[in-house]
């Protein structure tokens, strides 16, 4: 089992990461950050972008040290068989759990905003089915699908922003920096977890056709996502002010309030189009990484047989695990320390130990 049949280019990686950094996040991030940082939420997001770049660099550095291997293999190599497989398992579980949250968030959006009467099993089933269909065809197909759909989604978002622009009042962003740095930093905390999602490259980096040049796409994706979220949070704040914090899906209101000449009105269904496209790519990527990492962890030759059982688990857990939407929202906050320790802490730890024990070639040596 190797990545020979899976080759993605740097640009595809950048688009893929950009997509997962924006997809689930666009709807819930503004509310989470505004709750802490008030009007200065956009500053928090700028700060987070810098953190995101740093964590991305860290993850790339670790990945490049062990070319052709995933975190599952080199965590064993660095810390020994037993501890290494425990660490690998923790990453797998995190990927699975985040995916469960994303799927459930997806379902909650659909049920709250569009289809109150349709049972959520239908959505869980269809979403996971579509994701399974695509990842059985491999990472390359996922990347290409994203490559085709992402421009449309960006176009929709920018179009929505353009249409709502006349209704934005930027005075709602004032006062700037009223509470000092503390609220801004508090807002950074919940947002970091969304930007550290680049840690999936620890699994997919070997598929890159030129793994040595992973830095550029990762940084580009994080920066683009940072700008994107900043713009979007400014727009949401300029429309809703501090009410942003009260909404489950604040960006929806941006589209809901659109009204141009009495013809183009209430384009909230567009958000769904964006959400389905980007959300499915994100779910698919997590799904793929979970299956692949599990296969490597268990020493299987092929990951494809895992697609079906993992899918069933995803459907079941996403339905059963959260009793209601408020528990889901709480879980998103509660999981942050755990997630961050695996997304950023674990790579940092591994990198330090690897450097001390001299495991793996550093990127510079191999290139020379």
């Amino acid at each position: 089992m190797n990545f020979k049949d899976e080759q993605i280019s740097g640009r595809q990686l950048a688009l893929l990461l950009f997509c997962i950094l924006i997809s689930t996040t666009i709807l819930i991030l503004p509310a989470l950050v505004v709750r802490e940082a008030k009007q200065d939420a956009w500053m928090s997001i700028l700060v987070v972008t810098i953190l995101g770049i740093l964590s991305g660099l860290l993850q790339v550095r670790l990945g490049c040290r062990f070319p052709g291997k995933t975190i599952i293999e080199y965590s064993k190599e660095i810390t020994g068989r037993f501890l290494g497989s425990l660490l690998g398992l923790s990453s797998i579980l995190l990927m699975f759990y985040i995916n469960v949250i994303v799927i459930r968030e997806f379902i909650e959006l659909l049920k709250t905003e569009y289809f109150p009467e349709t049972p959520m099993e239908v959505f869980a089933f269809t979403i996971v089915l579509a994701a399974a269909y695509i990842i059985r065809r491999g990472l390359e197909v996922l990347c290409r699908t994203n490559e085709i759909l992402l421009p449309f989604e960006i176009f929709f978002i920018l179009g929505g922003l353009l249409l709502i622009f006349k209704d934005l009042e930027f005075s709602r962003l004032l006062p700037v920096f009223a509470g000092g740095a503390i609220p801004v930093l508090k807002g950074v905390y919940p947002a970091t977890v969304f930007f550290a999602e680049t840690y999936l490259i620890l699994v997919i980096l070997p598929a890159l056709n030129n793994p040595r040049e992973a830095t550029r796409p990762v940084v580009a994706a994080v920066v683009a996502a940072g700008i994107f979220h900043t713009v979007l949070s400014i727009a949401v704040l300029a429309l809703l002010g501090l009410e942003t914090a009260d909404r489950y899906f604040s960006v929806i209101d941006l589209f809901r309030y659109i009204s141009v000449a009495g013809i183009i009105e209430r384009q909230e269904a567009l958000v769904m189009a964006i959400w389905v496209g980007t959300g499915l790519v994100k779910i698919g990527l997590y799904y793929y990484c979970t299956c692949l990492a599990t296969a490597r962890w268990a020493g299987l030759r092929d990951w494809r047989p895992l697609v079906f059982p993992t899918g069933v688990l995803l459907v079941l857990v996403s339905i059963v695990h959260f009793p209601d939407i408020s528990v889901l929202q709480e879980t998103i906050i509660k999981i942050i320390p755990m997630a961050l320790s695996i997304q950023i802490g674990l790579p940092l730890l591994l990198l330090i130990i690897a450097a001390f024990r001299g495991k793996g070639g550093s990127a510079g040596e191999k290139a020379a």
Partner: protein
Amino acid sequence: MKKQLSLLLCAAIILIVTAGCWDYRELEQRGLVCCLGLDRAAEPGKIKMTVSVIRPGEVSSDTGAGGVVRSKAAYYTATGDTVFETTRNFLMQSSRRLFWGHNRNLIIGEAMAREGVFNVIDRFVRGVEPRLRSWVFVAGGTEAKEIVETVSKMEDGPGAELDALIKSSTSLSVVPQVDLKLFIERLNSKTAAAVVPRLELIRAGEKTDAGDYPGTSGPAGAAEPKRQRLKLSGTAVFKGDRLVGWLNKAESRGLLWALGKAQSSIVVVKCPGDESSLASLELLELISKIKPEKRGNRIVITVEVQTESNLVEQQGTADLATPEALRSLERRHATVVKNEIHATVKKAREYNADIFGFGEAIERKFPQEWKELESRWDEAFPELEIELKVKSRILRVGRITRPVGPR
């Protein structure tokens, strides 16, 4: 692979056939609400809702026949304990489930407004269907029910007519345009007070109130005795979620001057040099700023208003196309604006309602001082020092330089 596919296909078909499409609802199964009135019911604590529901079939058929004037909406009234319960109670009268997605008008009865609206407004933000762009009105002097009934009888598209009325009011600027989102924002604010246009019912033959323009009562009233019409008249002022009083036409315009929300408006002044005749000035551009300033340890609000207008009409024979005359007109224009804003401020102090959003302005400029001020805003607001700086300009005088009349 093929086996799996066919299995899935079968599963999908069985799912669709057995479970059906849950949220699928045909257009004709939805009652398209175009206007909603909220009132207190006779029973204590109950809510009375009146909705105007479009009868789409008649709208369509009428277009072909031409000349047939029929009411194209039906109105229903229902009562209940909460808004949503009442909404469903309509199903006892009409088979169609109400659909709020196209409701543009939300009319609150005066009695309900005076009691407070928090308890009834929640549903319209929480729910998926209602639109944030619905206009909010307060029915002045009547129940909202009567207004909705009148709306239902309107000719060219019930609901749309009210929508057009409030939209076209920008050329007159005597009432604020308030949609649900803006209303909610003000209700959510601790200090700023909500304002809502007042909607009044004119019964045929009745005299309109004194502040109205002469001649606007129209010929229709005389011709058809039973016809009732609606009129935007002034502004309702809320304190918290309760209606506390009204602003008349001039005061409403004062509010718009201060907020910079007037798009076009007519100011009538006496002609300089000929005090017995009048001139009309049409507002073209308005820029207003509310600037809090610190003077010592006091905070003073400066309201800066800049207007640009054209002379559009003149009575008498005075030559107004001279720089001196225009400067004089400008001063008179500024005085009118100033007086109207002063009147509004006076009313706002009287109601102790921060309808200008001075509090927010202070918060944005002086967040530190605001923390202390916020807690005692109710005492501070009536005492707040307010300075007015009005600068009016008149740029053009129209196509002729001299008025009509013998030279």
